[in-house]
C-alpha cells in the first residue's frame, strides 16, 4: 500500500512537471505577447502555440482529476482553501483560451487589441498564482481537524509566496522566450533572444533567493534531497545559458524544460511525505500516507495510468512532430 501511495505521489509529480513544461511555454509566450510591437508579430506568437495549447492544458485537467482520484482530501483542502486564487486562475485560463481562438477571427484593430490584452493578462495571472500556491504549500497552511483551511485569503499573500509567484512568472517567461526564439525567424526571433538573455538574470536571482529562503525556513522531513535538486535546477540554468549563448536554440529550450522539471521535483521532495503541511500543528498535515484513496482505487488508477500515459506521450510527440516547421510571420 505504501509503495502504491508513493507511486501516486510520483505520477502526480509527472503530471505537474508535464503541465509546467508544456503549458509553461505557451503561458510564457503570453507573457511576451504585449512586448511584440507589431500586430503581425503577435499573430505569429499565437500561430506558434495554436495547435498545442489545448493539449497542454489537458495536463492540468488530468492532474486535477488524478489528484481528486488519488488524494481526495488534498484536492478538497487545496481548492477550497485557495478558493479566490483558484477563481482568478480560472478567469485567466478562460480568457486566454478564447483569446487564442477568437483574436484572428475579426479583422478590426480594436477587437485584436482587446484579445491581445486578454491573452497576455490571462497568461500572466496563472503563471504568478501557480507560484503563489506552491509557495504557500511549502510554508504550510493553517488547517482544522477535518483539513479545512482556516487562514483567510490575505494570509496567502505573504512575502515568500509572492517571491515564489515571481519565480513562476520568470521561469515561464524565460521558457516562452526560448520557445519563441526556436519557432520564429527574423527580427522578432532576435527580440525573443534579447528577452531571454535579460530574463535569465532575473530568474537566476529570484530562484536563488527562493531556494535560499525556502531551504532555510521551510524544510521539514528531508533536507539534502530537495536542496540537492534545487541546486541542480540552478546549475541547469547555467547549462541553458551555455546552449543559448552558442545559438543552440532547441537544446536551450530542452534544457529549460529539464530545469523546470528539477524545480518541480525539488518542491515535491521538500514537501514529501506531506502534501499539505499544516503550519499550526504538524499532526494535522495531509500526507501521502494519511490522505490517499483506497488500495483498490489506487490500483485501478495505476492500470489506467499505465495504459494511458504512453498514449499521451505518443500524441504529444506526434503533434509536435507535425507542427515542427518554423512559424512564418504573416505579411500584415
Amino acid at each position, binding site marked *: 500500500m505504501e509503495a502504491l501511495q508513493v507511486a501516486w505521489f510520483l505520477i502526480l509529480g509527472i503530471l505537474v512537471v508535464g503541465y509546467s513544461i508544456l503549458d509553461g511555454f505557451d503561458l510564457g509566450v503570453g507573457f511576451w505577447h504585449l512586448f511584440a510591437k507589431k500586430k503581425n508579430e503577435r499573430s505569429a506568437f499565437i500561430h506558434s502555440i495554436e495547435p498545442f495549447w489545448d493539449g497542454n492544458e489537458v495536463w492540468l485537467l488530468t492532474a486535477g482529476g488524478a489528484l481528486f482520484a488519488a488524494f481526495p482530501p488534498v*484536492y478538497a483542502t487545496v481548492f477550497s482553501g485557495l478558493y479566490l486564487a483558484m477563481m482568478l486562475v480560472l478567469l485567466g485560463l478562460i480568457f486566454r483560451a478564447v483569446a487564442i481562438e*477568437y483574436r484572428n477571427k475579426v479583422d478590426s484593430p480594436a477587437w485584436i487589441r482587446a484579445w491581445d490584452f486578454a491573452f497576455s493578462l490571462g497568461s500572466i495571472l496563472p503563471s504568478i498564482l501557480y507560484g503563489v500556491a506552491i509557495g504557500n504549500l511549502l510554508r504550510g497552511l493553517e488547517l482544522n481537524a477535518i483539513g479545512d483551511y482556516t487562514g483567510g485569503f490575505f494570509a496567502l499573500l505573504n512575502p515568500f509566496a509572492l517571491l515564489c509567484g515571481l519565480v513562476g512568472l520568470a521561469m515561464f517567461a524565460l521558457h516562452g522566450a526560448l520557445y519563441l526564439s526556436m519557432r520564429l525567424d527574423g527580427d522578432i526571433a532576435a527580440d525573443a533572444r534579447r528577452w531571454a538573455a535579460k530574463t535569465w538574470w532575473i530568474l537566476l536571482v529570484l530562484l536563488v533567493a527562493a531556494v535560499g529562503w525556502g531551504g532555510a525556513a521551510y524544510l521539514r522531513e528531508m533536507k539534502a534531497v530537495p536542496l540537492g535538486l534545487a541546486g541542480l535546477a540552478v546549475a541547469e540554468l547555467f547549462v541553458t545559458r551555455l546552449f543559448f549563448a552558442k545559438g543552440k536554440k532547441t537544446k536551450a529550450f530542452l534544457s529549460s524544460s529539464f530545469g523546470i522539471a528539477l524545480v518541480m521535483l525539488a518542491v515535491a521532495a521538500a514537501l514529501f511525505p506531506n502534501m499539505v503541511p499544516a503550519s499550526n500543528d504538524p499532526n494535522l498535515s495531509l500526507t501521502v500516507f494519511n490522505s490517499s484513496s483506497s488500495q483498490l482505487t489506487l490500483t485501478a488508477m495505476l492500470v489506467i495510468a499505465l495504459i494511458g500515459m504512453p498514449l499521451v506521450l505518443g500524441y504529444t510527440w506526434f503533434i509536435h512532430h507535425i507542427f515542427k516547421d518554423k512559424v512564418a510571420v504573416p505579411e500584415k
Partner: protein
Amino acid sequence: MDVVLLARIQFGLTIGFHYVFPPLTIGLAWMIFLYNTRYQENDNPVFLQLARFWTRIFAISFVVGVATGITMEFQFGTNWAGYSRFVGDIFGAPLAAEGVFAFFLESSFLGILLYGRKKVSPRMYWFSSLMVALGATMSAFWIVVANSWQQTPAGYKVATEMVNGVPVAKAVLTNFWEAVFNPSTLPRYFHVITAALCVGVFFILGTSAWQILKGRHKDFAMRSMRSVIVPTFGVVLLTMFVGHHHGFQVSQTQPAKLAAFEGLWETQTHAPMMLFGLPDQKNEKNDFAITIPGMVSLFIGGKFDTEVQGLKAFAPEDRPPVAASFWSFHLMFYIGMWMALVSFVGVVLWLMKKLGEHKAYLWAAALTVPLPFLANEFGWIAAEVGRQPWVVYGELRTADAISASVPGGQVLASIIMFSLIYSLLFGLWIYLLKRQFHKGPEPLEGEVA
C-alpha cells in the same frame, strides 16, 4: 445568504452554461467526420466545402466548451469539499480517465483538424476528424460515469474513519467495474449522446434553413440541409427510444425521481400520465391537471395494472422539488416531440424533393435551432433536481457536501464574476457565429464567390 444555495447556484450556472457547448460539438464532430468520409470516398469538392465550413463553426464553439470546462474539473474541490472527501475514492477516477483517455486524444487531433490540413496526408486528416469525434464521445462517457454514480451508486461501501479525532464518513470502492457500469450509466450515456447528436444536426438543419430564408449562400445551405435531414430523423428516433429505456431504468432505481417527473402522489396501478398541471408540494396534490389514464403504468410495465410508486411513499424530507422536476422533464419531452415532427416533415419534403421550397417549413426548422439545446438543459435539470435532496442518492445529502471553509461572500463574488464572463462569452460566440454565416463557405474550385 445560504451558502448551500449559493454553492448550488454556482454549480448550476457553470455547468448549465458549459452544457450548451459539448452537445453541439459532439453532434457537429460526427457530421464533420461524415463529410470528410464522403470526400475521401468520392473526391467530390462539395463535401470538402461542407467539412471546412462546419469545422469553422465547430472551432468557434469548441473553445468555449474547453474554456468553461476547466472550471468543472476544479469546482468539486472549490465549492464541494465535503462532497469531494466523501466520494473521492470513486468519483475522481472517471475524471482522471476522461483526461487520459479522451481529452488528450481529442485535443491533439483537433490541432491537426484545425491547423494541419496542409501538413498531413488526406488519409491522416480524415483519421484526425474521426479521432476528434471519438475523443468527444469518449469524454462524455467518463463524465456520465461520474454523474451516474451519484444517481445510482454501486460497487462501494460506506466506511467511517476517525480523522484527528473527528469521525468522517466516506464511500470506499469495492468493485471498479460495478461502479463504472452502475445501473444508470449505459441508459444515461446513450440518451446523452443521442441528445447531443440532435443538437448538432438540428443546428445544421435550422441555421441552413435560416440562410435560405435570408437568401444567403443558398446553394451551400441547401446542400447542408440535404446532407443532414436523414441523420436528423434517425437520431431523434434513437433519442426517444433510448430515452424511454432510460426512463424505465429511473423507475426501477430512483422511484421518487420518477414520481416527481410524473407528478404522481399516490402509489397505484393504472397510474395516469399528467400532460399539464401545477404540482403543489405542500398540499401533496396537483392543480389544473390534465391527465391520460393509465399511461405511466403502460410505459413502465407494458400493461395498465403495473403498480407505480407515488411521492407519498417517501418521507417529505426525501422528496425532490416536484414542480421543478415535473416541468423540466415535461419541457424536455415536449421539445423532443416537436423535434420528431420537424424531422419527419423534413424527410417527407426531402423525398418529394421540395425540402428548400416551403417557407413555413424553413421557418419552423430555423426557429427549432435553440430547442434541442434547451431540451438538453431541461433533461439535465430534471436528472439533477430529481436526485435531490441527495447529492449521492440515498447516501449523502446536498447540504452536507459543500466547502465549509469558503465564506458565502466569496461564493457570491465568484457567481457574479462567472455570470459576467459567461454573458460576455455567449455574446461573442453568437457574434462570431453570425459573421461566419454571413461570410459563408469557401468557394468551390472553379466557382466565383
